[in-house]
C-alpha cells in the first residue's frame, strides 16, 4: 500500500509539472492581457511597460521557472483581473464547486446504480424500457441546454427554484456551505441535476451492462442452486462483481465533474472555481488560469490514487499480484 502511494506521488509531481509547462506554452496564444488591463486610452509604451513590470516579456522558460518556484512556496501571484491573491480566490470559491460536485456525484452514483440494477433485472419491463429511452436524453443533450431547460421549467414557469446563484450559505471556519439551509439546497438542486445527469446515465448504462454480463455467469447459477435469496444473489454476489469497472469510471467521472463544472457554473452563475476560470480565460488572467489548471491536475491525480486504493479493498486479487510483483 505504502509503495503504491509513494510511486503515485512521484507520478503526480511529474504530471503537475507537465500540466504547468503545457499551460504556459499555451498562454501566449490566448491573447494579450495588457490590452485588457489598461483602458483604451493607454499608449503602446504603457502596455509594454506594464508587460515588463509583470514579467510577460521574459522568455518562456524564465516565466515557467518563476511560476514553479513561487507555486512551490504556495504563492500563485495576484489575479490580473481582480488583483486579489489567486490562492485566496481559489480558497473562497472552491467550497461552492466541491459541494456542487459532491452532491451531483452522489446523486449520479446512487441513482445510476439503483436504476442500472433495476433495468438489468427487469430487462423487459415497460418501466425499465422507459428509463432506458429517457436516459438517451441525458447522454445526448449538451449540458448548457439541459441547464437552460431546467431553468425555464423550474424557475421561470413554475417559480419553484431560483434560476441563478448560490444563496443561504453559512460560513463555518472559512468554508461556506449551502447544505445547512433550505435556500442553499434550493439553489443547489438545478445545477447539481444539470451537472450529474450525464454521469448518472453513464453509470446506469454501465451497471446495467455489467450486471447482465455477470448474471449469466456460472457462479450466479450455483448461488441460486444453493438456494440463496434472489436479493442476496443480485446485490451480494452480482452487484459486487460489477463494481470494479463502475468505480473506475465513477472515479474518473468525479474528476471531470470537478474539472468541467465550468459550463454548469456559468449557466447558473454558480460562484465556484469553474466560473472563475471562464472569467480568467476571457480576461487572459494568466495567474488564475495556471493555478486552476494545476488544481484540476491535482484533483485528477488524487482521485486516481483513491480509485487505485479502492480496487485493493474490493478485489483482493490485485493486492496479491502487487505483493507477488514486489517480492
Amino acid at each position, binding site marked *: 500500500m505504502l509503495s503504491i502511494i509513494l510511486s503515485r506521488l512521484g507520478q503526480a509531481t511529474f504530471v503537475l509539472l507537465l500540466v504547468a509547462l503545457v499551460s504556459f506554452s499555451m498562454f501566449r496564444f*490566448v*491573447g*494579450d*492581457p495588457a*490590452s*485588457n488591463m*489598461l*483602458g*483604451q*486610452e*493607454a*499608449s*503602446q*509604451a*504603457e*502596455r509594454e511597460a*506594464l508587460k515588463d*513590470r*509583470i514579467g510577460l516579456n521574459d522568455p518562456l522558460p524564465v516565466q515557467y521557472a518563476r511560476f514553479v518556484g513561487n507555486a512551490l512556496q504556495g504563492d500563485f*501571484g*495576484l489575479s*490580473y*483581473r*481582480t*488583483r*486579489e*491573491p489567486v490562492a485566496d480566490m481559489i480558497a*473562497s470559491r472552491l467550497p461552492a464547486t466541491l459541494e456542487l460536485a459532491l452532491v451531483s456525484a452522489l446523486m449520479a452514483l446512487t441513482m445510476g446504480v439503483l436504476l442500472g440494477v433495476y433495468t438489468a433485472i427487469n430487462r423487459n419491463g415497460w418501466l425499465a424500457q422507459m428509463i432506458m429511452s429517457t436516459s438517451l436524453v441525458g447522454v445526448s*443533450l449538451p449540458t*448548457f*441546454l439541459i441547464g*437552460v*431547460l431546467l*431553468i*425555464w*421549467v423550474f*424557475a*421561470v*414557469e413554475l*417559480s419553484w427554484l*431560483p*434560476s*441563478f*446563484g*448560490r444563496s443561504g450559505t453559512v460560513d463555518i471556519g472559512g468554508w461556506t456551505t449551502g447544505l445547512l439551509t433550505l435556500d442553499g439546497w434550493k439553489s443547489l438542486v438545478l445545477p447539481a441535476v444539470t451537472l450529474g445527469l450525464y454521469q448518472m446515465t453513464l453509470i446506469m448504462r454501465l451497471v446495467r451492462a455489467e450486471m447482465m454480463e455477470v448474471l449469466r455467469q456460472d457462479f450466479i447459477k450455483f448461488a441460486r442452486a444453493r438456494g440463496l435469496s434472489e436479493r442476496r444473489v443480485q446485490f451480494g454476489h452480482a452487484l459486487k462483481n460489477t463494481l470494479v469497472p463502475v468505480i473506475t469510471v465513477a472515479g474518473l467521472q468525479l474528476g471531470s465533474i470537478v474539472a468541467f463544472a465550468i459550463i454548469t457554473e*456559468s*449557466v*447558473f*452563475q454558480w*460562484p465556484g472555481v469553474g*466560473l*472563475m476560470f*471562464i*472569467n480568467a480565460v*476571457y*480576461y*487572459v488572467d494568466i495567474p488564475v488560469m495556471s493555478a486552476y489548471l494545476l488544481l484540476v491536475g491535482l484533483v485528477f491525480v488524487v482521485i486516481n490514487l483513491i480509485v487505485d486504493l479502492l480496487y485493493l479493498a474490493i478485489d483482493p486479487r490485485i493486492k496479491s499480484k502487487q505483493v507477488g510483483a514486489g517480492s
Partner: protein
Amino acid sequence: MPRNQIAAAILAAAVIAPLASAETLRWARSGDSLTLDPHAQNEGTTHTVAHQIYEPLLHRDMAGQIVPALATSWATVPGNPNVWRFTLREGVTFHGGEAFTADDVVFSIKRAKMESSDMKGLLTSVKDVRAVDDLTVDIETNGANPLLINNLTNLFIMDRGWSEANDSATPQDFAAGETSFAAANTNGTGAFQLVSRTPDERTVFKANPNYWGKGQFPLEVTEIIFTPIQSAATRVAALLSGEVDFVQDVPVQDLGRVDSADGLKVVKAAQNRVIFFGMNQGKADLETDSVEGANPFADRRVREAMNIAINREAIQKVVMRGQSDPTGVIMPPFVNGWTAELGAIPANDLNKAKSLMADAGYGDGFSVTLNCPNDRYINDEAICQAFVGMMGQIGITVNLDSKPKAQHFPTIQNQTTEFYMLGWGVPTFDSHYIFNFLVHSREGDRGPWNNTGYSNADVDSMIVSLESETDLAVRDATIGKIWNQVQQDIVYLPVHNQVLNWSMANNVAFDVQPEDQPHFKYLSFQ
C-alpha cells in the same frame, strides 16, 4: 417534433412572477466590477459600481449632461486660462462621518495621477492641484485645456484621512504583488454605501442616510442588490421569473419577449458607441490580399466602392433586429462636432460601386482577410458575416477571421491586422477624443488606435490645435474642417451606433444613460 422545437415551445410558455418590494432594487448585468478602488481600473462596470458609492466633482446625469456633484461651480480663473477653479459643496460628509474638504480633492486627484493608477491617462494635462481654502480648489494645466472637466466625470474623490490610515494612499500596485484595503472597502460621499460584497457573486448597497442630495434627487431606492449573471439566457430567465428587477444587457433577440411579458418593459436610447471597419490604406502592399505589389485600399475609389456597397439598413434590420442606428460617420450623435449631414448614411449603390472598382482596376475583384471580434460588441461576428456578403457583391472576397477580444484588440494595437472591426465610445463627448486616437498619425502617444496608416500633416496640426484653442467657436470650426477631410478621404467605413436597451420591471421609472451608466439616485418607483 425536433428537440429544439420542443425547447422553443417550453421557452415560449414563460410566465411572470410578482414584482419586488418598492425599496429594494435587484440589478443584474453580465459583468462585475473589477475592484472597489476607484482609481485602479478605468472600466465601465467598475465605474458604475463606484458611482453609487463615490462621487466626482461633477458627473454626467442620466441624459449625459455634465451636472455638479461635489463641486457646485467651476470656471477658469479670469485672465489665466491655464487654471480651473472649483467651488466645493458645503456640509458634505463621507460615509464614515469625515467632513469633505478641498484637501480630499487635492489628495484624490494626485492619487489618480500616480503611476499605479489606471486613471492617469485622463489627467496628463494636469500640472498641479492646489487647495485655495477649505472649499476651493485650483487645477493648473500644462497650457490651456478648455475640456478639462470632460475628463473629470469618472474621477472619484476619496477621504484623505481614511485612505492614509488604511494604507491606501496610493492605488494598488499590483505588479509589485501588493494587495490593497481600498480594493475591498469603501468610504465615499455617494448616495449609497457598501453593505457587503463577494466578487463575481453579490454586492449589496444601502441608502446613505446623510446624503447631501436629499430633496434634490428621487432617492427612492433604499437597498440595491447587484448580481453579475454572465449567461445571457439565465439573465433573461431571472428577469422573467421576477428574481431581478433591472437588467442592462438583454440580448437583442430576447428583447421582444421581455417587452411583451407582463410586468416588464424595455427602455431604449442611443448608446455612446459607434461600430465601424478600418483598413490599412497607408501600406505599399498588403500581406493578406491577393494583389501583388499594390494596396487596393490605398485607392480612394476602392474605399468609396466599399462604403456604398454596405447595406446599413439591412444590417440594422436583419442582424440587429432594429436595435441600431445606422450612421455615415464614426461619431455618436451626442458628441460635440456631430451634424445630421455627417451622420447621414451613404446611399447603397451597387452599380456605382462596381464601376468604381472597375475604374480603380479591380473589376475582377481581389481577396483580403478581415479581423473581427466575437465577444465585444452587440452581434459583432454576425455584422462581419453580413459585411462579407456585401463585399462579395462587388467582387471583394473577404476571408473572415473572428477571435475573442483578448486576441482581436492586440492585432490593432500591434498593427498586425490590415482590415478590422472596431467600436469606439467617446467618454469626453468631444470629437478631439476620436481624432486623437483614431485619425492622428500614429506617432508618440498620438493615434494609438489608428491602424489605417492614414497620415495627413494638416489634419494632425489641426488636431493638436484643438487642445489649447480656448475660443470655442474657432475650435468647433476646426473640428468641422477635420471631419470634412476625414469623410472626404473615407478613412473608415462607419456601420452604426449601438442602441442601449435597459429592461426593467414596470414599476421602475428610469431613463437610459448614453454611457450605460445607471445612477440609482435618479431612479424612482411608480
